[in-house]
């Protein structure tokens, strides 16, 4: 093999190595940006206009293992699914403050709420919500029950709720609570009663 060929082959190897490292760097950069975007999503949401409206939140307490009913006033958008999203974001903000009665993953947010027909709500949460959620039967049960109870308390037409993570179905929230099923308002009512 002549020296020139070896040099060319060496150059090609270097280019390939450089391309590989660059591709790997891009992959990491995209992942980082997605994470930052998810964390900033809550702060970047445009505020709704209008007068504050009282809403009911079912707020979980880890130390008491309970779900407490509380009222707060927030500005609600006119559209029904946007209202449901705003109510859930108010619930999440109660969990994200410090000290939190029921910590959930940092940067947790509701990406969207879709209404299917008149009685079914599909709540699309972000990855930070599920990935950072504390693991445990009670901890996850409190989160699911508080989401479903809050949604149905503020929109009595909602009878079934499904929770997605980043647009996809997930087996469990953090290893325990089932996220593959549709939660029935009538069924979750009994769980909420037990937790009060």
């Amino acid at each position, binding site marked *: 093999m002549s020296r020139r060929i070896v040099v060319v*082959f060496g150059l090609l*190897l270097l280019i390939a190595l450089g391309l590989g490292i660059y591709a790997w760097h891009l992959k990491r950069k995209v992942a980082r940006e997605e994470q930052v975007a998810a964390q900033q999503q809550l702060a970047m949401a445009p505020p709704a206009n209008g007068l504050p409206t009282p809403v009911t939140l079912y707020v979980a307490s880890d130390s008491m293992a309970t779900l407490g009913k509380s009222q707060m006033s927030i500005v609600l958008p006119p559209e029904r699914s946007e209202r449901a999203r705003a109510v859930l974001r108010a619930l999440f903000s109660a969990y994200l403050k410090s000290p939190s009665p029921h910590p959930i993953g940092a940067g947790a947010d509701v990406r969207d709420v879709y209404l299917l027909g008149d009685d079914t709500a599909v709540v699309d949460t972000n990855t930070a919500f599920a990935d950072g959620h504390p*693991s*445990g039967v*009670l901890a996850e049960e409190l989160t699911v029950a508080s989401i479903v109870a809050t949604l149905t308390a503020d929109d009595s037409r909602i009878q079934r709720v499904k929770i997605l993570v980043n647009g996809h179905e997930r087996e469990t929230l953090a290893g*325990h609570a*089932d996220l593959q099923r549709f*939660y029935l308002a009538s069924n979750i009512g009994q769980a909420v009663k*037990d937790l009060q």
Partner: protein
Amino acid sequence: MPRFDRNAPLWAALVVFAPLLLVVLLLRLVPVQAQAPAPAQITVYSPQTSYSVSLLDVKGQPYVGLVEVLEPLGSLDAKPEGKKYKLRFTPAGGRTEEAQFTEGKDKGKVRGDSYKLPATFVVQNGRGYVPLTAISNLLARLLSTQTEFHPAGRRLFVATVPERFTLDMRAGNPSRLLLGFSSAVNPTIATEPGRVRLTFRREPVVAAGADKVNYDDPLITGASFSEHDGVAELDITGTAPLMANFADGGKTIIVTGAPPPPPSMAELPAPAPQVPPLPPAVTPPPRQPATPRFLVLIDPAHGGADIGAAITPSLQEKDVVLALARRVQRELASHGVAAGLLRNSDIGIALDQRAVSANAARPALYVALHAANTGRGVHVFTELLPAANTSPQSFLPWDTAQAAFLDLSGTVAGSVAAELEARKLPNATLLAPLRPMNNIAAPAVAVEIAPPSENVEEIASAAYQEQVAQAIAAGIVAVRPKLPEVRP
């Protein structure tokens, strides 16, 4: 520009494909590195139970965790105190013994006497590890019993005589090889052309004679026994497809020629002649209906890479619940109730697979165990499903199989909660949408323990776990008459 006069196609291919190949290889580098090989393990056989324990590689030397090895054999309280690692162990029906080691030192104390390890003692994540080569002698000293260690096969026999099986070759048409065991066995059987492989994971079987036997037989040509990574394997080779049948209630396995596959339609002769009867040796006896029995199946949640909740940086849910599961099993046994564990070592099982295994075991009751640091005390859960009017005997949908058993599940939960209350343990009975409890076709409860006080580490204390285990067992025993026995 370089000239590629000679071997032009080769160079063109190199120029085009080499960079692409390298890019692909580099991109695949991270996931390839993430795929670790299956961890090595040791299997321990004792008169009460047999179980596997994963090994830890410390500078190329296999180490084994003291908690993982000792916990199934009795009651254990082990904790690090600075560099020291103290453990108090009470074997079933025996008296409490103590041992102490120091991290980074090879000298320790066992039952008050000095004890030298072949290499230094290691502590990782609050757990003590000794070199694998020391475990047999250490257990013999601590338990005052005989042990036998097969280092090549990584099998440890504690107060158990290895069970030697017999090989009895019966020439004939077809020839049969009879494997005789002193008690029933349940190996995994794998067949491939001209070979049957029996893998024994839980049975302490060893070869009675030579590891390899050759037969001068036209069908079965040999049998070889081997041990590796905590399992025993018996390989039987032949000149034609072989099959294995159980006989004598599982104490005998008959290996013989597999029946030829049915001919295709084209090969079938037009007038069907009289069908020859099967030889009596391979005709299975009429199966007797199995007797209903009461089995409690305990499912220690998580395992393997799925650690569950990180209760403290060094205390994981998967370990806490395995220890609790073993205590519940012992408590139930002391009340005369048979109980099995869905996992008895640090292995990961998918949620669906847990439900499949649990339903296949046909238990009278399924108990899932969890641990977390949310709240205080013990929470007893039943499945959050709408009650169904379907009969438990009918066809049950996979996602809502538990719905048919909610009444009985609630009865068990109430009974366990009452026993917890009687022991003054904070408790609550709740509903939860818990996987895989919704798939369980039997009465089912889940018990999640939380620390009893501000000190989170108390969740793993022997005293607290013993109290909880006693309450769970007593609660189950109290409602046993209400739970129907099930045919296996």
